[in-house]
């Protein structure tokens, strides 16, 4: 074993006296399964009207009926094109480069289409800007959302576009001279900016205001104050040696996100060097989970920490935080211009401090800022108050849903009474359903567009399918309304004449992304004179260190799966487990164990393995949100709570997906930090959490060590091969002498291996959704997930560990210097759950060369391929589930029900539209069969076939799985180990390489690279 660290998957395991843990060690379930309840009840059995004979009759009849029905084959009709488009060959996928820009996620993507249907989102390798996260991966399913708005509406009546245009023109004419606000998402689009300027020039009473649902206004303000233009500083974390983050979840959605790929590059030790990452934060975020050192701190403390870091003087910080700050400061200094300080505090001063501190840093780029957030809180508040006060007479919303996401409840009522309310929306959301006029807009995969996400980096958006509904994109509509006869496609081409330079339009469209020095103005029209003073408006009580007695500092955050909530009707995202809490289908109050204990809040595991949690009521002034479930989160700073935005949507959201509570009500002044108070409420909430499932108790699952040990010691010390005894001699478990089994000769042909680098993996979950899309993995719903019947082929296990091992504790005790340090460190040792270390480990089928599942299958439905893949023949499987029971990795998934075309599981596979996303090369599994990761055999086979057809050898990098191609961090490397020049072959020789549960002797084809933490202080 590499270390004696103790890992746990649930706080329950830390409680030594917990009877649950003890029971679980002995039994599979905490309580006996109540079989006696119905079997023991003789009366109930006898009262049953079906006798044994009747039962047999029914069985006989149904069997006979079924076999008779099977005798006649169905008549299948095939309808070819009348005129086939040139580029479509049935059965061959086409790829198009396009970009997503939904106001929250901005990314360059490749869209895989089959027979004209987009079925998968891939990364565009030409783009240096990251951000193809789980939500972007899942966005293809939102295209096929049956709850989309199909036609434009006026007063609830369906209209043709001509009628609609006439209505709007009349309204705009009637409203002349009265103030109308055009409230839009951030487009970051040169053409759209130009177009909106033309529109507001034609209608001078229309004012354009940009509204980011999740605001980055303070950072924009700070940048504008310092550098003169509105934008966000860009960071290249691959260049960083020391990263200090104060409340910035930069591996999540901080300032538009997309920083994780660069970060991961610096995290893989090269020549004994890797970056050091220190995180001060309140909620346990993805960034905190990946940090080398994580210090929980309240938002108020964070501000002081930032002051201290940037050379100011801090007050009121506890000793252990002060030490951490001092250490961080020293390390930053040592790193010189390769150190960087970032902050996510919603405070202009704080953002300014960070910008100033990074002046001259090689990591930060202010010359070419990011343009993916443009919102101005002060102006948005102006609009909100204007509508409520009645000074704003008309509101046109585009891509935003203010009735849902504005914090002021009076807004909804005022909005309904507006003279003119026009919503451009893909669905009848809260705003659109209250609006008098609704313009149905297309999904980004059906629309044209252009983008400048970062200054000088241009990209294009092109439709990949004909609009599914009678929709018209906002820009085309605006062109009509400004009397322009062009369509938006021609309009973009016109704008791009200046951008293209020497590149041809076709080339730019093909690449999807273009670097150009063209200066294109796209800042929103400046605010009117009456702009509210920024500081006074965004000054925030929660950031001044005055939390009232019994109060909590709330940090609102966005979840990896849900983001700002614009894709709430997407079942893939609803069912995607949160990387940290591993909870699906919910948002909740994250609270520290200490505070929970004080308030009597409980999290308990019940008989069926599900997690239950107490409800709390959350109060903020006169706003009360009742019955929010509370989840005890290790690492949550004391006195703080976290709550995710983007949940609690109800309008045009399918009932199953109306989950969680709407936290935007607490987003006062669009500030993510608020002072609130909590009280415990009655009842227990049933979480659908995949946490205490699949426990790998106390075994050597994740290997990790510190950078110093990694550099100084031999691999045998920190990455030891398990030994077995043969003839009283210790031999490695991988030695052929320790082997019972015959093996294929794999020296010929391909032999696939997948390497997963635990240092590069940030746990973002893009691979989980990519796997979903590629392999037609079904969504099973909250109830089934709670029963551990989730179907994800690829899961990302998250393990908490105390900071030090027992040995480490001993070292630590000796190294304690001074009273202050001893106090803090002793208390830390006592309460490891207060601030655990976190490790992520993606686990899918390990494709063992000596697979335990294969030997127990009675019908040989699972067998081994020479290329290293463990095959699963669904049509052969009879559903005994022996294989799943015999799998040490618990990666096999059983189809307990029919998940396609079944009203009980009313997700995308239950409607014609949603089924359009299915990958035609992969079977949709039926009830009663086992399934699991196939190592994307359909993709490897296709690569082989392409090479055979072209008559050439296969190059390294051509073989990909859905997960490895989705991973922009390089954490997953897939390839052929019989190709000795391949990267994956190199990985097999890496001294960090180990196999999961090596001691079992399964010889997996998936390998892991041990995690190295740069834990050295100063």
């Amino acid at each position, binding site marked *: 074993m590499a270390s004696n660290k103790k890992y746990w998957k649930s706080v329950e395991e830390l409680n030594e006296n917990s009877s649950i843990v003890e029971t679980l060690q002995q039994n599979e379930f905490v309580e006996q399964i109540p079989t006696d309840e119905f079997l023991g009840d003789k009366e109930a059995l006898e009262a049953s009207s079906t006798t044994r004979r009747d039962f047999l009759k029914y069985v006989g009849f149904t069997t006979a009926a079924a076999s008779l029905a099977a005798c006649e084959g169905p008549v299948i009709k095939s309808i070819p094109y009348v005129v086939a488009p040139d580029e479509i060959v049935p059965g061959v996928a086409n790829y198009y480069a396009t970009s997503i820009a939904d106001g929250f996620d901005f990314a360059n993507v490749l869209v895989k289409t089959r027979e004209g249907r987009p079925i998968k989102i891939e990364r565009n390798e030409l783009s240096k800007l990251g951000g193809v996260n789980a939500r972007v991966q899942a966005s293809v399913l939102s295209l096929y959302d049956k709850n989309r708005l199909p036609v434009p509406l006026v007063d609830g009546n369906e209209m043709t576009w001509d009628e609609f245009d006439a209505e709007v023109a009349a309204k705009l004419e009637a409203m002349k001279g009265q103030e109308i606000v055009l409230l839009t998402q951030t487009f970051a689009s040169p053409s759209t900016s130009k177009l909106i300027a033309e529109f507001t020039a034609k209608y001078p009473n229309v004012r354009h205001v940009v509204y980011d649902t999740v605001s980055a206004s303070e950072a924009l303000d700070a940048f504008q104050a310092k550098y003169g233009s509105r934008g966000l500083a860009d960071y290249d974390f691959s260049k960083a040696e020391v990263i200090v983050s104060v409340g910035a979840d930069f591996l999540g959605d901080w300032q538009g996100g997309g920083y994780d790929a660069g970060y991961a590059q610096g995290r893989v030790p090269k020549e004994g060097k890797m970056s050091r990452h220190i995180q001060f934060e309140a909620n346990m975020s993805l960034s905190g989970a990946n940090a080398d050192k994580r210090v929980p701190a309240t938002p108020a403390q964070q501000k002081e920490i930032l002051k201290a870091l940037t050379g100011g003087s801090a007050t009121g910080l506890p000793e252990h935080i002060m030490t951490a700050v001092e250490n961080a400061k020293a390390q930053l200094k040592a790193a010189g211009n390769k150190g960087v300080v970032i902050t996510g505090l919603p405070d202009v001063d704080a953002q300014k401090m960070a910008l100033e501190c990074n002046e001259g840093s090689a990591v930060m780029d202010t010359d070419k800022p990011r343009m993916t957030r443009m919102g101005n809180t002060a102006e948005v508040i102006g609009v909100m108050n204007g509508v409520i006060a009645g000074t704003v007479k008309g509101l046109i919303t585009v891509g935003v849903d203010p009735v849902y996401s504005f914090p002021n409840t009076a807004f909804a009522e005022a909005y309904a009474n507006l003279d003119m309310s026009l919503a451009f929306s893909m669905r009848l959301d809260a705003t659109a359903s209250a609006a008098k006029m609704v313009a149905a807009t297309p999904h980004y995969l059906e629309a044209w567009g252009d983008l400048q996400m970062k200054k000088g980096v241009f990209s294009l958006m092109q439709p990949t399918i004909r609009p599914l509904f009678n929709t018209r994109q906002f820009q085309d509509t605006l062109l009509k309304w400004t009397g322009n006869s062009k369509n938006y496609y021609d309009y973009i081409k016109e704008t791009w004449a200046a951008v293209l330079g020497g590149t041809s339009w076709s080339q730019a469209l093909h690449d999807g992304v273009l670097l150009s020095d063209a200066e294109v103005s796209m800042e929103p029209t400046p605010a009117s004179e009456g702009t509210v003073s920024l500081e006074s408006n965004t000054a925030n009580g929660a950031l001044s260190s005055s939390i009232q007695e019994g109060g909590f500092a709330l940090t609102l955050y966005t979840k990896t799966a849900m983001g700002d909530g614009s894709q709430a009707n997407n079942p893939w995202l609803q069912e995607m487990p949160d990387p940290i809490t591993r909870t699906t289908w919910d948002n909740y109050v994250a609270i520290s164990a200490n505070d929970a204990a004080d308030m009597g809040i409980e999290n308990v595991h019940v008989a069926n393995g599900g997690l239950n949690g107490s409800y709390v009521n959350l109060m903020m002034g006169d706003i009360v949100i009742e019955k929010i479930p509370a989840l005890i989160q290790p690492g949550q700073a004391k006195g703080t709570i976290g709550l995710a935005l983007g949940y609690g949507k109800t309008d045009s959201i399918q009932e199953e997906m109306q989950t969680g509570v709407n936290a935007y009500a607490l987003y006062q002044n669009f500030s993510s930090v608020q002072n609130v108070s909590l009280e415990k409420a009655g009842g227990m909430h049933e979480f659908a959490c995949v946490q205490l499932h699949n426990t790998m108790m106390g075994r050597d699952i994740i290997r990790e060590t510190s950078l110093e040990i990694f550099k100084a010691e031999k691999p045998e010390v920190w990455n030891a091969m398990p030994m077995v005894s043969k003839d009283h001699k210790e031999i490695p478990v991988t030695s052929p002498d320790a082997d019972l089994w015959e093996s294929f000769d794999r020296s010929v042909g391909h032999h696939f291996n997948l390497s997963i680098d635990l240092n590069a993996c940030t746990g973002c979950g893009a691979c989980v959704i990519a796997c979903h899309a590629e392999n037609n993995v079904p969504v099973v719903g909250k109830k089934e997930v709670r029963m551990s019947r989730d179907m994800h082929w690829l899961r990302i296990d998250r393990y908490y560990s105390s900071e030090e091992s027992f040995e480490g504790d001993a070292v630590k005790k000796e190294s304690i210097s001074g009273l202050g340090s001893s106090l803090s460190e002793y208390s830390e040792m006592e309460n490891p759950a207060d601030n655990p270390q976190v490790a992520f480990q993606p686990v899918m089928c390990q494709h063992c060369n000596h697979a335990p599942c294969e030997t127990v299958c009675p019908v040989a439905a699972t067998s081994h391929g020479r290329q290293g893949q463990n095959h699963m023949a669904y049509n052969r499987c009879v559903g005994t589930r022996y294989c799943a029971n015999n799998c040490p990795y618990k990666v096999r998934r059983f189809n307990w029900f029919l998940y396609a075309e079944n009203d009980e599981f009313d997700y995308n596979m239950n409607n014609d539209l949603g089924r359009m996303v299915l990958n035609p090369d992969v079977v949709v599994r039926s009830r009663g069969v086992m399934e699991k990761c196939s190592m994307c055999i359909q993709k490897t086979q296709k690569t082989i076939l392409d090479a055979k*057809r072209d008559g050439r050898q296969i190059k390294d990098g051509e073989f990909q799985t859905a997960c490895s191609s989705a991973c922009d961090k390089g954490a997953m490397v897939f390839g052929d180990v019989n190709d000795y020049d391949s990267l994956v072959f190199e990985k097999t020789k890496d001294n960090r390489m180990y196999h999961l549960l090596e001691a079992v002797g399964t010889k997996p084809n998936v390998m892991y690279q041990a995690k190295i933490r740069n834990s050295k202080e100063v």
Partner: protein
Amino acid sequence: MKKVNYRNLPSQLSLLLLACLLTFSTTIIAQDTGDVAAGEALFKANCAACHKLDKKATGPELRGVAQKYEKEWLRKWIRNSQELVKAGDALAVKLFTENNNSVMTPFPALSDTDIDNILAYTSQPKPEPVVAEVPTGGGGNEGGNVSNDIILGALTLLFLLLVVMLFLVRNTLKRIAEANGVEFEKKEKQLPVWKAFAQNQFLVLTTSIFLLLAAGYFAYGWMMQVGVDQGYAPVQPIHYSHRIHAGDNQIDCNYCHSSARKSKTSGIPSLNVCMNCHKNIAEVAPETQAEGAEFGVDYNQEIKKLYAAVGWDEDTQAYTGKTQPVKWLRIHNLPDFAYFNHSQHVTVAGVECQTCHGPVEEMEVMEQFAPLTMGWCINCHRETNVNLESNEYYTKMHEELSKKYGVDKLTIAQMGGLECGKCHY
């Protein structure tokens, strides 16, 4: 079969007469204008792609065109019609606009004699539609069938009468014999066969074992063919004859099923592929039409169906835009859980289409030739050698594998072609 020799005599005679008539008439015209035979050859080589004699195609029908326009003008027009149009020749402009402004290919290489020959060919009178009567020659044959039936019926009747009479005779004789006091030997009452059988336990046992085994065998056989649609030949919405296209006309399978080379599906051709040829082939040759009668198909009507589906207006020679996609009945159906890729077999392995689809070029109605069962797939994979030489992908593998197995040829099975996951995912 003497009868057959004379069967078609009247129609043959009429054909002969017609031929004579035609020859004489054409020679009469040809005497003062040109050589009809040479004209026909030229017409077929140069003009037939767009013009027909009696029917509007891309260009107007040409029979009698020499009578409509002056010869000199026609020569100019044929050599370069656009020149005339541009020059503003009123007649040329009129013709050009009448024919949807479609530009006629210029033929500057045609000499005056060539053009005269073509015009001579187009000036021949329309042949009487006697040819259509050719198939009626079959009428005699049908008549033969009818008389055969009658003769057979009469014979049967006769035979029955004979039997009845014999029976009556026997009875009468018997009665006479009885009247004459002849005594018949009475047979001893024997045990009925079935009782004897039932009493023999050994026989009962072996028979029932045999019956059970036979029942099992047939039940198994019956069950194994459930879902196997070998020989499935549904009636398609448009009668498409592979015999004519792939057999008589020798069109390459890949011309229509082009995606077989690069995709997993061979693809049912889209209708624009049909129109590549059928824009000009609105009617089949009379002999072909005659063959159609044997199958009960009117090929010309089937082409009309194609035109209706693709939205082609024969009169205006233009697409109307009104289409009705054809709902073909799919014949070859693999279940969803089996992955099959055409390009792997067609392009990489070079398997002939006929290996799996049978003699398609002989099929008037397309049918499923192979059983498409897994056993059938596997068998081929076991027996077929992989062509390793010409493909660079296999070079390294070939070397190593042949070293391993010690043979120069490798079957698909040896390359891992029997693994479940190669087809089931």
